[in-house]
Protein backbone atom coordinates (compact mmCIF):
# COMPACT_ATOMS: atom_id res chain seq x y z
CA UNK A 1 0.00 0.00 0.00
CA UNK A 2 2.89 2.27 0.77
CA UNK A 3 4.37 2.50 -2.67
CA UNK A 4 1.18 3.56 -4.37
CA UNK A 5 1.12 6.51 -2.00
CA UNK A 6 4.51 7.70 -3.19
CA UNK A 7 3.28 9.54 -6.22
CA UNK A 8 0.46 11.10 -4.27
CA UNK A 9 2.86 12.48 -1.70
CA UNK A 10 5.50 13.55 -4.17
CA UNK A 11 2.96 15.71 -5.92
CA UNK A 12 2.32 17.46 -2.64
CA UNK A 13 5.94 17.56 -1.62
CA UNK A 14 7.07 18.72 -5.05
CA UNK A 15 8.51 22.23 -4.79
CA UNK A 16 6.77 23.35 -7.98
CA UNK A 17 3.36 21.90 -7.27
CA UNK A 18 2.04 24.11 -4.43
CA UNK A 19 0.20 26.94 -6.09
CA UNK A 20 1.72 29.71 -3.97
CA UNK A 21 2.29 32.88 -5.93
CA UNK A 22 5.79 34.23 -6.30
CA UNK A 23 5.24 37.07 -3.87
CA UNK A 24 3.99 34.66 -1.19
CA UNK A 25 6.93 32.41 -1.97
CA UNK A 26 9.43 35.25 -1.53
CA UNK A 27 7.85 36.51 1.68
CA UNK A 28 7.68 32.99 3.11
CA UNK A 29 11.31 32.43 2.12
CA UNK A 30 12.44 35.62 3.82
CA UNK A 31 10.56 34.71 7.01
CA UNK A 32 11.95 31.16 7.04
CA UNK A 33 15.42 32.47 6.28
CA UNK A 34 15.40 34.91 9.18
CA UNK A 35 13.93 32.32 11.56
CA UNK A 36 16.48 29.66 10.60
CA UNK A 37 19.36 32.13 10.78
CA UNK A 38 18.25 33.38 14.19
CA UNK A 39 17.72 29.86 15.51
CA UNK A 40 21.15 28.88 14.25
CA UNK A 41 22.87 31.89 15.81
CA UNK A 42 21.07 31.62 19.14
CA UNK A 43 21.49 27.86 19.01
CA UNK A 44 25.22 28.24 18.47
CA UNK A 45 25.44 30.63 21.41
CA UNK A 46 23.58 28.19 23.62
CA UNK A 47 25.68 25.33 22.28
CA UNK A 48 28.86 26.99 23.50
CA UNK A 49 27.25 27.11 26.94
CA UNK A 50 25.96 23.55 26.61
CA UNK A 51 29.41 22.39 25.63
CA UNK A 52 30.94 23.95 28.73
CA UNK A 53 28.16 22.72 30.99
CA UNK A 54 28.32 19.18 29.63
CA UNK A 55 32.11 19.18 29.82
CA UNK A 56 31.82 20.29 33.42
CA UNK A 57 29.21 17.64 34.14
CA UNK A 58 31.36 14.90 32.62
CA UNK A 59 34.39 16.11 34.56
CA UNK A 60 32.43 16.49 37.78
CA UNK A 61 32.72 20.26 38.20
CA UNK A 62 30.32 23.21 37.97
CA UNK A 63 31.07 24.96 34.72
CA UNK A 64 29.99 28.57 34.08
CA UNK A 65 27.52 29.54 36.82
CA UNK A 66 28.16 33.23 37.54
CA UNK A 67 26.45 35.17 34.73
CA UNK A 68 22.71 34.77 34.96
CA UNK A 69 20.78 31.79 36.28
CA UNK A 70 23.08 28.76 36.11
CA UNK A 71 25.33 30.69 33.73
CA UNK A 72 22.57 31.05 31.15
CA UNK A 73 23.70 34.55 30.16
CA UNK A 74 27.31 33.48 29.69
CA UNK A 75 27.02 33.34 25.86
CA UNK A 76 25.64 36.89 25.83
CA UNK A 77 28.51 38.08 27.99
CA UNK A 78 30.99 36.32 25.71
CA UNK A 79 29.36 37.88 22.66
CA UNK A 80 29.53 41.41 24.06
CA UNK A 81 33.12 40.87 25.12
CA UNK A 82 34.08 39.62 21.69
CA UNK A 83 32.55 42.62 19.95
CA UNK A 84 34.24 45.13 22.27
CA UNK A 85 37.67 43.49 22.34
CA UNK A 86 40.66 44.85 20.53
CA UNK A 87 41.53 43.14 17.28
CA UNK A 88 45.18 42.47 16.63
CA UNK A 89 46.60 42.49 13.14
CA UNK A 90 50.00 40.81 13.05
CA UNK A 91 52.55 42.83 11.11
CA UNK A 92 53.51 39.82 9.05
CA UNK A 93 49.93 38.92 8.11
CA UNK A 94 48.53 39.44 4.63
CA UNK A 95 45.74 41.83 5.58
CA UNK A 96 43.08 41.37 2.84
CA UNK A 97 42.91 37.61 3.25
CA UNK A 98 43.39 37.85 7.00
CA UNK A 99 40.20 39.93 7.26
CA UNK A 100 38.30 37.92 4.66
CA UNK A 101 39.07 34.44 6.03
CA UNK A 102 36.66 34.47 9.01
CA UNK A 103 33.83 35.57 6.72
CA UNK A 104 34.76 32.80 4.27
CA UNK A 105 34.47 30.25 7.06
CA UNK A 106 31.23 31.74 8.36
CA UNK A 107 29.32 32.08 5.09
CA UNK A 108 29.30 28.42 3.92
CA UNK A 109 28.62 27.28 7.48
CA UNK A 110 25.44 29.35 7.51
CA UNK A 111 24.43 28.46 3.95
CA UNK A 112 24.50 24.66 4.24
CA UNK A 113 21.47 24.36 6.46
CA UNK A 114 19.26 25.92 3.78
CA UNK A 115 18.18 22.70 2.04
CA UNK A 116 17.49 20.57 5.11
CA UNK A 117 13.75 20.08 5.65
CA UNK A 118 12.99 20.56 9.33
CA UNK A 119 9.25 19.84 9.56
CA UNK A 120 6.29 18.73 7.50
CA UNK A 121 4.81 21.33 5.11
CA UNK A 122 2.72 24.07 6.68
CA UNK A 123 -0.71 24.77 5.20
CA UNK A 124 -1.62 28.45 5.05
CA UNK A 125 -4.45 30.33 3.44
CA UNK A 126 -2.05 31.27 0.63
CA UNK A 127 -1.00 27.68 -0.11
CA UNK A 128 1.30 24.99 1.18
CA UNK A 129 4.64 26.29 2.52
CA UNK A 130 7.57 23.88 2.55
CA UNK A 131 9.39 23.85 5.87
CA UNK A 132 12.80 24.27 4.30
CA UNK A 133 14.54 27.53 3.41
CA UNK A 134 15.44 26.49 -0.14
CA UNK A 135 13.49 23.49 -1.51
CA UNK A 136 16.08 22.68 -4.16
CA UNK A 137 15.61 19.64 -6.40
CA UNK A 138 19.36 18.95 -6.12
CA UNK A 139 19.07 18.82 -2.33
CA UNK A 140 21.95 16.78 -1.16
CA UNK A 141 24.37 17.85 -3.90
CA UNK A 142 24.01 21.44 -2.70
CA UNK A 143 25.20 20.42 0.76
CA UNK A 144 28.22 18.61 -0.64
CA UNK A 145 29.06 21.61 -2.80
CA UNK A 146 28.69 24.32 -0.16
CA UNK A 147 30.12 22.39 2.77
CA UNK A 148 33.38 21.79 0.93
CA UNK A 149 33.81 25.55 0.50
CA UNK A 150 34.37 25.83 4.25
CA UNK A 151 37.93 24.64 3.83
CA UNK A 152 38.89 27.90 2.07
CA UNK A 153 38.27 30.02 5.13
CA UNK A 154 40.40 27.73 7.25
CA UNK A 155 43.32 27.33 4.90
CA UNK A 156 43.39 31.04 4.05
CA UNK A 157 43.26 31.95 7.74
CA UNK A 158 46.21 29.65 8.38
CA UNK A 159 48.21 30.99 5.49
CA UNK A 160 47.47 34.70 5.80
CA UNK A 161 48.32 34.80 9.53
CA UNK A 162 51.94 34.17 8.57
CA UNK A 163 52.52 32.17 11.71
CA UNK A 164 54.08 28.73 11.66
CA UNK A 165 51.48 27.16 13.91
CA UNK A 166 48.60 28.74 12.04
CA UNK A 167 50.00 27.53 8.75
CA UNK A 168 50.40 24.00 10.03
CA UNK A 169 46.90 24.07 11.48
CA UNK A 170 45.46 25.28 8.20
CA UNK A 171 47.34 22.66 6.19
CA UNK A 172 46.38 19.85 8.51
CA UNK A 173 42.80 20.92 8.50
CA UNK A 174 42.55 21.15 4.73
CA UNK A 175 44.21 17.75 4.23
CA UNK A 176 41.91 16.23 6.80
CA UNK A 177 38.68 17.75 5.49
CA UNK A 178 39.59 16.85 1.95
CA UNK A 179 40.39 13.23 2.88
CA UNK A 180 37.17 12.62 4.76
CA UNK A 181 35.00 14.39 2.24
CA UNK A 182 35.51 11.46 -0.12
CA UNK A 183 34.35 8.88 2.41
CA UNK A 184 31.45 11.15 3.31
CA UNK A 185 30.36 11.47 -0.31
CA UNK A 186 30.76 7.74 -0.95
CA UNK A 187 28.82 6.72 2.15
CA UNK A 188 25.87 8.81 0.96
CA UNK A 189 25.86 7.06 -2.42
CA UNK A 190 24.38 4.08 -0.58
CA UNK A 191 21.59 6.34 0.70
CA UNK A 192 20.94 7.57 -2.82
CA UNK A 193 20.87 3.98 -4.12
CA UNK A 194 18.06 3.16 -1.73
CA UNK A 195 16.19 6.45 -2.06
CA UNK A 196 16.65 6.87 -5.81
CA UNK A 197 16.76 10.65 -5.59
CA UNK A 198 18.98 13.40 -4.22
CA UNK A 199 16.07 15.53 -2.95
CA UNK A 200 16.10 15.32 0.84
CA UNK A 201 12.29 15.12 1.04
CA UNK A 202 12.39 11.93 -1.03
CA UNK A 203 15.06 10.48 1.23
CA UNK A 204 12.87 11.19 4.26
CA UNK A 205 9.84 9.67 2.54
CA UNK A 206 11.76 6.53 1.63
CA UNK A 207 12.82 6.11 5.25
CA UNK A 208 9.29 6.70 6.50
CA UNK A 209 7.91 3.98 4.25
CA UNK A 210 10.63 1.34 4.79
CA UNK A 211 12.97 1.66 7.76
CA UNK A 212 15.26 4.44 8.86
CA UNK A 213 18.56 4.21 7.05
CA UNK A 214 20.26 3.80 10.40
CA UNK A 215 18.92 0.24 10.39
CA UNK A 216 18.93 -0.28 6.63
CA UNK A 217 22.38 1.20 5.97
CA UNK A 218 24.24 0.93 9.26
CA UNK A 219 27.72 0.76 7.76
CA UNK A 220 27.09 3.89 5.68
CA UNK A 221 25.90 5.58 8.86
CA UNK A 222 29.10 4.65 10.70
CA UNK A 223 31.28 5.94 7.87
CA UNK A 224 29.24 9.13 7.62
CA UNK A 225 29.38 9.68 11.36
CA UNK A 226 33.16 9.36 11.47
CA UNK A 227 33.54 11.60 8.43
CA UNK A 228 31.19 14.18 9.96
CA UNK A 229 33.36 14.38 13.06
CA UNK A 230 36.45 14.83 10.90
CA UNK A 231 34.77 17.41 8.66
CA UNK A 232 33.76 19.56 11.60
CA UNK A 233 37.24 19.30 13.16
CA UNK A 234 35.84 17.94 16.38
CA UNK A 235 37.57 15.58 18.76
CA UNK A 236 38.88 12.96 18.19
CA UNK A 237 39.77 14.67 14.90
CA UNK A 238 40.64 18.14 16.17
CA UNK A 239 44.25 18.03 14.96
CA UNK A 240 43.99 21.43 13.25
CA UNK A 241 43.72 22.99 16.68
CA UNK A 242 45.54 20.46 18.81
CA UNK A 243 46.39 22.71 21.75
CA UNK A 244 49.38 20.74 22.88
CA UNK A 245 50.99 20.84 19.44
CA UNK A 246 49.77 23.92 17.61
CA UNK A 247 48.61 26.27 20.39
CA UNK A 248 45.27 27.07 18.74
CA UNK A 249 45.81 26.15 15.11
CA UNK A 250 44.56 28.18 12.18
CA UNK A 251 42.73 30.83 14.23
CA UNK A 252 45.57 31.54 16.63
CA UNK A 253 46.27 35.10 15.44
CA UNK A 254 42.61 36.01 15.46
CA UNK A 255 40.94 37.90 18.25
CA UNK A 256 37.60 39.54 19.04
CA UNK A 257 34.75 39.09 16.56
CA UNK A 258 36.90 37.48 13.87
CA UNK A 259 37.76 34.70 16.30
CA UNK A 260 34.08 34.47 17.18
CA UNK A 261 33.18 33.97 13.54
CA UNK A 262 35.40 30.87 13.37
CA UNK A 263 33.75 29.61 16.51
CA UNK A 264 30.26 30.23 15.15
CA UNK A 265 31.25 28.51 11.91
CA UNK A 266 32.51 25.45 13.76
CA UNK A 267 29.38 25.12 15.86
CA UNK A 268 26.96 25.75 13.03
CA UNK A 269 28.84 23.14 11.02
CA UNK A 270 28.18 20.80 13.91
CA UNK A 271 24.49 21.65 13.80
CA UNK A 272 24.35 21.10 10.05
CA UNK A 273 26.24 17.81 10.30
CA UNK A 274 23.85 16.63 13.01
CA UNK A 275 20.84 17.72 10.97
CA UNK A 276 22.26 15.90 7.96
CA UNK A 277 22.86 12.74 9.97
CA UNK A 278 19.28 12.93 11.16
CA UNK A 279 17.92 13.55 7.67
CA UNK A 280 19.91 10.86 5.91
CA UNK A 281 19.87 8.14 8.55
CA UNK A 282 17.22 8.91 11.18
CA UNK A 283 14.28 9.84 9.02
CA UNK A 284 14.57 13.64 9.30
CA UNK A 285 11.33 15.01 10.72
CA UNK A 286 9.63 11.63 10.41
CA UNK A 287 7.85 10.35 13.51
CA UNK A 288 8.76 6.67 13.83
CA UNK A 289 6.21 3.83 13.44
CA UNK A 290 3.57 5.99 11.83
CA UNK A 291 2.86 7.26 8.34
CA UNK A 292 0.28 9.72 9.61
CA UNK A 293 2.85 12.52 9.77
CA UNK A 294 4.15 11.99 6.24
CA UNK A 295 0.84 12.32 4.43
CA UNK A 296 -1.61 15.06 3.64
CA UNK A 297 -3.77 16.58 5.08
CA UNK A 298 -1.18 18.84 6.60
CA UNK A 299 -1.87 20.90 9.68
CA UNK A 300 -0.06 23.31 11.94
CA UNK A 301 -0.02 20.75 14.75
CA UNK A 302 1.66 18.25 12.46
CA UNK A 303 4.28 20.82 11.47
CA UNK A 304 5.04 21.66 15.09
CA UNK A 305 5.17 18.02 16.18
CA UNK A 306 7.45 16.93 13.34
CA UNK A 307 9.62 19.99 13.96
CA UNK A 308 9.90 18.95 17.59
CA UNK A 309 10.91 15.43 16.61
CA UNK A 310 13.53 16.84 14.26
CA UNK A 311 14.88 19.12 17.00
CA UNK A 312 15.10 16.28 19.51
CA UNK A 313 17.01 14.09 17.07
CA UNK A 314 19.41 16.91 16.19
CA UNK A 315 19.96 17.74 19.85
CA UNK A 316 20.80 14.13 20.54
CA UNK A 317 23.59 14.25 17.96
CA UNK A 318 24.85 17.55 19.29
CA UNK A 319 25.06 15.95 22.70
CA UNK A 320 26.78 12.98 21.10
CA UNK A 321 29.44 15.32 19.70
CA UNK A 322 30.22 16.58 23.19
CA UNK A 323 30.01 13.17 24.74
CA UNK A 324 32.58 11.84 22.27
CA UNK A 325 34.79 14.83 22.97
CA UNK A 326 35.30 13.73 26.57
CA UNK A 327 35.43 10.03 25.78
CA UNK A 328 38.01 9.56 23.05
CA UNK A 329 41.56 10.92 22.95
CA UNK A 330 42.91 12.69 19.88
CA UNK A 331 44.28 10.70 16.95
CA UNK A 332 47.84 10.98 15.78
CA UNK A 333 48.08 12.53 12.31
CA UNK A 334 49.24 9.35 10.59
CA UNK A 335 46.41 7.40 12.22
CA UNK A 336 43.95 10.00 11.00
CA UNK A 337 45.18 9.81 7.45
CA UNK A 338 45.32 6.04 7.37
CA UNK A 339 41.81 5.79 8.81
CA UNK A 340 40.50 8.07 6.09
CA UNK A 341 42.34 6.66 3.10
CA UNK A 342 43.07 3.06 3.97
CA UNK A 343 39.98 2.10 5.95
CA UNK A 344 36.98 4.29 5.21
CA UNK A 345 37.58 4.75 1.49
CA UNK A 346 37.89 1.04 0.54
CA UNK A 347 35.12 0.08 2.96
CA UNK A 348 32.79 2.67 1.42
CA UNK A 349 33.62 1.51 -2.12
CA UNK A 350 32.98 -2.15 -1.34
CA UNK A 351 29.85 -1.25 0.57
CA UNK A 352 28.36 0.56 -2.42
CA UNK A 353 28.88 -2.53 -4.57
CA UNK A 354 27.30 -4.78 -1.94
CA UNK A 355 24.26 -2.55 -1.51
CA UNK A 356 23.79 -2.15 -5.27
CA UNK A 357 24.00 -5.93 -5.68
CA UNK A 358 21.55 -6.51 -2.84
CA UNK A 359 19.05 -4.07 -4.33
CA UNK A 360 19.29 -5.92 -7.63
CA UNK A 361 18.72 -9.28 -5.93
CA UNK A 362 15.74 -7.88 -4.01
CA UNK A 363 14.33 -6.62 -7.29
CA UNK A 364 14.92 -10.03 -8.87
CA UNK A 365 13.09 -11.74 -6.01
CA UNK A 366 10.28 -9.25 -6.44
CA UNK A 367 10.51 -7.85 -2.91
CA UNK A 368 9.07 -4.34 -2.90
CA UNK A 369 10.17 -1.50 -0.60
CA UNK A 370 8.43 -2.06 2.71
CA UNK A 371 9.00 -3.69 6.07
CA UNK A 372 10.48 -6.96 4.74
CA UNK A 373 12.75 -5.02 2.38
CA UNK A 374 14.02 -2.97 5.31
CA UNK A 375 14.44 -6.06 7.48
CA UNK A 376 16.60 -7.81 4.87
CA UNK A 377 18.79 -4.70 4.48
CA UNK A 378 18.99 -4.40 8.25
CA UNK A 379 20.16 -7.98 8.76
CA UNK A 380 22.66 -7.63 5.92
CA UNK A 381 24.06 -4.51 7.55
CA UNK A 382 24.26 -6.10 10.94
CA UNK A 383 26.33 -8.89 9.42
CA UNK A 384 28.50 -6.42 7.50
CA UNK A 385 29.08 -4.32 10.60
CA UNK A 386 30.05 -7.47 12.46
CA UNK A 387 32.49 -8.44 9.72
CA UNK A 388 33.89 -4.91 9.71
CA UNK A 389 34.49 -4.63 13.45
CA UNK A 390 35.30 -8.19 14.43
CA UNK A 391 37.23 -9.55 11.45
CA UNK A 392 38.64 -6.68 9.37
CA UNK A 393 39.46 -4.49 12.32
CA UNK A 394 40.39 -7.29 14.74
CA UNK A 395 41.31 -4.94 17.55
CA UNK A 396 43.63 -2.61 15.63
CA UNK A 397 41.93 0.71 14.96
CA UNK A 398 38.75 0.76 16.96
CA UNK A 399 40.28 -0.68 20.07
CA UNK A 400 41.75 0.38 23.37
CA UNK A 401 45.45 1.23 23.41
CA UNK A 402 46.02 -2.15 25.07
CA UNK A 403 45.05 -3.76 21.74
CA UNK A 404 48.40 -2.69 20.32
CA UNK A 405 50.49 -4.29 23.09
CA UNK A 406 51.78 -7.86 22.96
CA UNK A 407 49.72 -10.27 25.05
CA UNK A 408 52.44 -11.21 27.56
CA UNK A 409 53.53 -7.60 27.92
CA UNK A 410 49.96 -6.63 28.67
CA UNK A 411 49.76 -9.33 31.32
CA UNK A 412 52.96 -7.99 32.92
CA UNK A 413 51.63 -4.43 32.88
CA UNK A 414 48.37 -5.51 34.49
CA UNK A 415 50.24 -7.45 37.18
CA UNK A 416 52.39 -4.38 37.83
CA UNK A 417 49.36 -2.19 38.19
CA UNK A 418 47.61 -4.49 40.63
CA UNK A 419 50.70 -4.39 42.87
CA UNK A 420 50.86 -0.61 42.76
CA UNK A 421 49.49 1.26 45.80
CA UNK A 422 47.68 3.59 43.36
CA UNK A 423 45.65 0.75 41.90
CA UNK A 424 41.95 1.37 42.03
CA UNK A 425 40.11 -1.02 44.30
CA UNK A 426 37.95 -3.48 42.44
CA UNK A 427 40.19 -3.93 39.37
CA UNK A 428 39.00 -2.49 36.03
Amino acid at each position, binding site marked *: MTWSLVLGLLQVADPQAPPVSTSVFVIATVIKMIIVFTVLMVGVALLTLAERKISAWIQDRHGPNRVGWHGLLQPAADGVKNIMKEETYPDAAYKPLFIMAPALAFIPAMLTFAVIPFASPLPTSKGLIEMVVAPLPIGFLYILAIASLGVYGIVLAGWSSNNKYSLLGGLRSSAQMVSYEISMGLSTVAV*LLVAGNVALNDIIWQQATTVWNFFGLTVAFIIFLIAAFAETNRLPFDLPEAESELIAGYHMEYSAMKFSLFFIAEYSNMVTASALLVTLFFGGWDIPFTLWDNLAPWSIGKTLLTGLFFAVKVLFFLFFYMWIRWTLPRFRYDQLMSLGWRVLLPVALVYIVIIAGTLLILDLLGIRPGALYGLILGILNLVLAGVLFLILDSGRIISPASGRVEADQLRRLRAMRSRSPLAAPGGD
Partner: protein
Amino acid sequence: MSRTYLPVLLLMGFVVFNAILMIGLSHLTMRSRPTPVKQSAYESGIPALGEARERFSVKFYMVAMLFIIFDIETVFLIPWGAYFRNLSCAVPLTNGLCPSGQVSMFGLVEMLVFMAILIVGLVYVWKKGALQWD
Protein backbone atom coordinates in the same frame (compact mmCIF):
# COMPACT_ATOMS: atom_id res chain seq x y z
CA MET B 1 11.50 26.92 -12.15
CA SER B 2 13.31 30.23 -12.21
CA ARG B 3 12.33 30.88 -8.62
CA THR B 4 13.70 27.57 -7.30
CA TYR B 5 17.16 28.97 -6.63
CA LEU B 6 15.98 32.38 -5.49
CA PRO B 7 16.01 31.39 -1.77
CA VAL B 8 19.68 30.41 -2.00
CA LEU B 9 20.52 33.77 -3.54
CA LEU B 10 18.53 35.62 -0.89
CA LEU B 11 20.12 33.64 1.91
CA MET B 12 23.58 34.17 0.47
CA GLY B 13 23.02 37.93 0.39
CA PHE B 14 21.70 37.87 3.94
CA VAL B 15 24.58 35.81 5.30
CA VAL B 16 27.25 37.87 3.52
CA PHE B 17 25.64 41.03 4.87
CA ASN B 18 25.70 39.59 8.38
CA ALA B 19 29.33 38.53 8.12
CA ILE B 20 30.36 42.01 6.99
CA LEU B 21 28.15 43.57 9.66
CA MET B 22 29.75 41.57 12.43
CA ILE B 23 33.31 42.22 11.34
CA GLY B 24 32.50 45.89 10.73
CA LEU B 25 30.74 46.35 14.06
CA SER B 26 33.60 44.86 15.95
CA HIS B 27 36.00 47.04 13.98
CA LEU B 28 34.08 50.18 14.92
CA THR B 29 33.68 49.46 18.62
CA MET B 30 37.22 48.38 19.40
CA ARG B 31 40.03 50.63 20.59
CA SER B 32 43.21 49.91 18.75
CA ARG B 33 46.40 50.17 20.82
CA PRO B 34 49.03 48.40 18.80
CA THR B 35 52.47 47.70 20.19
CA PRO B 36 55.35 46.04 18.34
CA VAL B 37 55.20 43.00 20.60
CA LYS B 38 51.45 42.63 20.19
CA GLN B 39 51.85 42.78 16.41
CA SER B 40 54.46 40.05 16.23
CA ALA B 41 53.64 36.44 15.48
CA TYR B 42 52.50 34.54 18.55
CA GLU B 43 54.72 31.62 19.41
CA SER B 44 53.78 30.88 23.01
CA GLY B 45 55.48 34.00 24.30
CA ILE B 46 59.02 33.53 23.07
CA PRO B 47 60.30 35.85 20.30
CA ALA B 48 59.20 34.56 16.91
CA LEU B 49 61.85 32.61 15.06
CA GLY B 50 62.01 32.87 11.30
CA GLU B 51 59.14 33.13 8.87
CA ALA B 52 56.10 31.00 8.16
CA ARG B 53 56.60 31.30 4.41
CA GLU B 54 58.70 28.18 4.20
CA ARG B 55 58.43 24.97 2.27
CA PHE B 56 56.15 22.38 3.78
CA SER B 57 55.81 18.64 3.40
CA VAL B 58 55.08 17.37 -0.09
CA LYS B 59 52.54 14.97 1.40
CA PHE B 60 49.95 17.71 1.62
CA TYR B 61 50.17 18.15 -2.15
CA MET B 62 49.88 14.41 -2.57
CA VAL B 63 46.69 14.34 -0.52
CA ALA B 64 45.29 17.21 -2.57
CA MET B 65 46.00 15.37 -5.83
CA LEU B 66 44.55 12.10 -4.60
CA PHE B 67 41.52 14.01 -3.37
CA ILE B 68 40.81 15.38 -6.82
CA ILE B 69 40.91 11.91 -8.39
CA PHE B 70 38.69 10.26 -5.82
CA ASP B 71 36.35 13.20 -5.45
CA ILE B 72 35.67 13.06 -9.16
CA GLU B 73 34.91 9.38 -8.69
CA THR B 74 32.40 10.34 -6.01
CA VAL B 75 30.92 12.93 -8.31
CA PHE B 76 30.38 10.23 -10.94
CA LEU B 77 28.98 7.77 -8.42
CA ILE B 78 26.32 10.12 -7.06
CA PRO B 79 24.22 10.43 -10.26
CA TRP B 80 24.71 6.71 -10.85
CA GLY B 81 23.42 5.99 -7.34
CA ALA B 82 20.40 8.22 -7.78
CA TYR B 83 19.62 6.66 -11.19
CA PHE B 84 20.43 3.07 -10.25
CA ARG B 85 16.83 1.84 -10.24
CA ASN B 86 16.33 3.04 -13.78
CA LEU B 87 19.63 1.59 -14.96
CA SER B 88 18.93 -1.82 -13.48
CA CYS B 89 15.60 -2.21 -15.23
CA ALA B 90 15.28 -3.35 -18.83
CA VAL B 91 12.02 -1.43 -19.34
CA PRO B 92 10.96 2.01 -18.08
CA LEU B 93 9.92 2.05 -14.43
CA THR B 94 6.26 1.93 -13.51
CA ASN B 95 5.39 3.81 -10.32
CA GLY B 96 9.09 4.09 -9.52
CA LEU B 97 9.49 0.31 -9.53
CA CYS B 98 10.78 -2.22 -11.99
CA PRO B 99 8.15 -4.67 -13.26
CA SER B 100 9.11 -8.14 -12.03
CA GLY B 101 11.29 -10.20 -14.35
CA GLN B 102 12.69 -7.13 -16.08
CA VAL B 103 15.79 -6.64 -13.92
CA SER B 104 18.96 -5.84 -15.85
CA MET B 105 22.57 -6.05 -14.72
CA PHE B 106 23.59 -3.06 -16.83
CA GLY B 107 23.88 -0.48 -14.06
CA LEU B 108 25.84 -2.69 -11.70
CA VAL B 109 28.28 -4.02 -14.29
CA GLU B 110 29.01 -0.59 -15.73
CA MET B 111 29.85 0.73 -12.28
CA LEU B 112 31.94 -2.31 -11.43
CA VAL B 113 34.09 -1.64 -14.50
CA PHE B 114 34.47 2.01 -13.54
CA MET B 115 35.22 1.12 -9.94
CA ALA B 116 37.72 -1.60 -10.89
CA ILE B 117 39.80 0.94 -12.79
CA LEU B 118 39.84 3.24 -9.79
CA ILE B 119 40.58 0.48 -7.33
CA VAL B 120 43.60 -0.49 -9.43
CA GLY B 121 44.68 3.14 -9.05
CA LEU B 122 44.10 3.03 -5.30
CA VAL B 123 46.11 -0.17 -4.96
CA TYR B 124 48.94 1.37 -7.00
CA VAL B 125 48.99 4.49 -4.84
CA TRP B 126 48.86 2.36 -1.71
CA LYS B 127 51.77 0.15 -2.81
CA LYS B 128 53.77 3.22 -3.81
CA GLY B 129 53.41 4.42 -0.22
CA ALA B 130 51.53 7.63 -0.97
CA LEU B 131 48.97 6.77 1.71
CA GLN B 132 51.72 6.10 4.24
CA TRP B 133 52.05 9.11 6.49
CA ASP B 134 55.01 8.95 8.83
